[in-house]
């Protein structure tokens, strides 16, 4: 077989195609399948001879009938913010939980977290609610409440055993994300934070296409200082541009580590190319600040505690506070008032 790198599908096409009810296929998708949900389903060159052709061709085209239902569910949610990064392990989930705790310090506000990392959900552990399950009633699924004004939804709550692997391909993951939006009683909420897995694939496309109708405030990007990480984050910003998601700002995590013994500061993940600040400038997006590495943040996550409530004197807390305030300003809100 001679090699071929076929011209990739136009990115715009993939982004614009909202998800539809998936046709019931009778055979696995062939290589170069345009996607059973796409506009070209059943009509592309590669569809000729595929046993699914007739099924795909007759599948409903046009806007997803579930979109109005989702918009109705989320009608009471004021702000929807995505937490994104092309790179894994830079602190998306950690940052999501910190942000949620910070917003929730004001008891009159309600905050929700939707964990769309299907294969590696971290939010329940970081929030200390790993062993909870979801309650399903006639009116829908209720989120797990960490405090009176902080609710969480994650696939982790649905697994029979804590360590079960979720071996799912894209369409199944999309189906669950849709359920999180359509079935969950988010109710009246000031902030809904959407934590995402690394990359620019199914989860991100689904969240974008499903939330578009009800309005996304924008996305906050998390990175670490070194170029290996910035490289992937650059791709994620490119994705946001193409999908029309506003980038609310970039935050640099793990910037420098202060030795607890001699207070010498080390640049563990050295910013050899200027770090987050330079990338933000290059891409023309707001830079929200740098958060230093503090082992206590990781520890708070492991034990499901709020770093925000426990260590208000640390430099990391002060940096985080600045970032949270900066982000809130971007969406026209005022949080963490100065005492």
């Amino acid at each position, binding site marked *: *077989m*001679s*090699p071929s790198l076929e011209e*990739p*599908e136009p*990115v715009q096409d*993939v982004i614009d195609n909202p998800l539809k009810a998936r046709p019931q296929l009778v055979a696995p*998708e062939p*290589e*170069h399948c345009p*996607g059973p949900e796409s506009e070209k389903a059943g009509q592309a060159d590669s569809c000729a001879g595929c046993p699914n052709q007739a099924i795909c061709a007759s599948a409903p085209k046009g806007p997803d009938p579930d979109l109005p239902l989702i918009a109705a569910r989320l009608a009471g949610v004021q702000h929807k913010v995505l937490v994104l990064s*092309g790179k*894994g*392990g*830079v602190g998306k989930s*950690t940052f999501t939980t910190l942000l949620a705790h910070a917003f929730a310090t004001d008891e009159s506000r309600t905050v929700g977290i939707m964990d769309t990392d299907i*294969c*590696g*959900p*971290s939010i329940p*552990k970081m929030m200390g609610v*790993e062993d909870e399950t979801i309650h399903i009633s006639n009116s829908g699924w209720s989120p797990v409440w960490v405090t009176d004004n902080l609710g969480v939804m994650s696939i982790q709550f649905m697994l029979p055993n804590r*360590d*079960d*692997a*979720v*071996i*799912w*391909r*894209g369409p199944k993951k999309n189906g669950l994300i849709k359920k999180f939006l359509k079935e969950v009683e988010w109710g009246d909420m000031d902030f809904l934070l959407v934590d995402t*897995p*690394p*990359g*620019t*694939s*199914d989860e991100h496309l689904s969240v974008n296409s499903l939330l578009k109708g009800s309005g996304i405030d924008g996305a906050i990007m998390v990175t*670490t200082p070194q*170029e*290996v990480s910035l*490289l*992937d984050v650059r*791709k*994620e*910003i*490119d*994705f946001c541009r*193409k999908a029309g998601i506003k980038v609310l700002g970039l935050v640099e995590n793990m910037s420098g*580590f202060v*030795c607890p*013994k*001699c207070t*010498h500061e*080390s640049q*563990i993940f*050295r910013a*050899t190319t200027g770090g987050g600040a330079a990338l933000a400038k290059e891409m023309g997006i707001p830079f929200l600040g740098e958060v230093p590495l503090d*082992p206590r943040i*990781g520890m708070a*996550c*492991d034990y499901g505690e709020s770093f925000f409530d426990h260590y208000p004197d640390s430099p990391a807390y002060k940096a985080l506070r600045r970032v949270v305030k900066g982000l809130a300003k971007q969406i026209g809100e005022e949080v963490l008032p100065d005492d």
Partner: protein
Amino acid sequence: MSLARIKHIVLVLSGKGGVGKSSITTQLALSLSLSGHSVGVLDVDLTGPSMPRMFNIEDAKVTQAPGGWLPVPVHVANPEKGVGELRCMSLGFLLRGRGDAVVWRGPKKTAMIRQFLSDVLWGEMDYLLIDTPPGTSDEHISLAETLLKEAKPGQLAGAVIVTTPQAVATADVKKELNFCVKTRIPVIGVIENMAGFVCPNCAECTDIFGKGGGQVMAKDFDVPFLGRIPIDPQFVMLIETGRRPEYPQGTVINGEDFSKALQKGSGSSTGEVTKEASLLAEKYRGCSLEPIFREITQDIVTAVE
């Protein structure tokens, strides 16, 4: 299949992102090559390929030959010094701009991975290391399906599982171990990365991301524990800028004096900065992590051969 003449295939997996899969893959590849094996690295992280950056061959392009794609050479074999050939294949080489997003849904990724496994002309080779994205989804299912169906008996040596010590990471990595159990991919062992950071000023070791989580997990799942890798900013610098690792006077690791490593190399006084990829393996010999990986590599080689 283009994998026919490869002796051993090793997957590098982790449920969690950013734990150092790519940097572990890089070091395993360098270490295997330095011990005389011919090595190929296949990067199947389609939406965030890191291997081209790791090997400093970002500008390289893949050449087509009759019957397939030619992998990009990192360095050629040097039988005199006992160094094996090292080559790499990544989606990163096929992208137009380095900042371009790859916005692909599952079926497209599946097709690409099948093509990567069938159309790359590796030829005769000792080890193929496959670097993966985090998770247990399309890429992993496709890899497992294709390899389990088409690899010769014994060719798929198994998976090296990478984690960091903290519980948030091992929680995800346990899912990956269960993925291996379900798909019957043998687990070669667990590596605990980012275990401790030694302050270059006062030599105090801080466990930034906790300690021991990987070892406990390996024990719980009854799989071998291959070792613990500390954070070494000098390795990060080597990858980021190509600077030869430098250590303060008197840095002794496992009885080897690393402060002298500078003179051991090409004789230049302070950390020379050349971005030439062919020297990467040579410079890596002066990195404090090299002896640790030499041992891990020996364990892996013993386990699979």
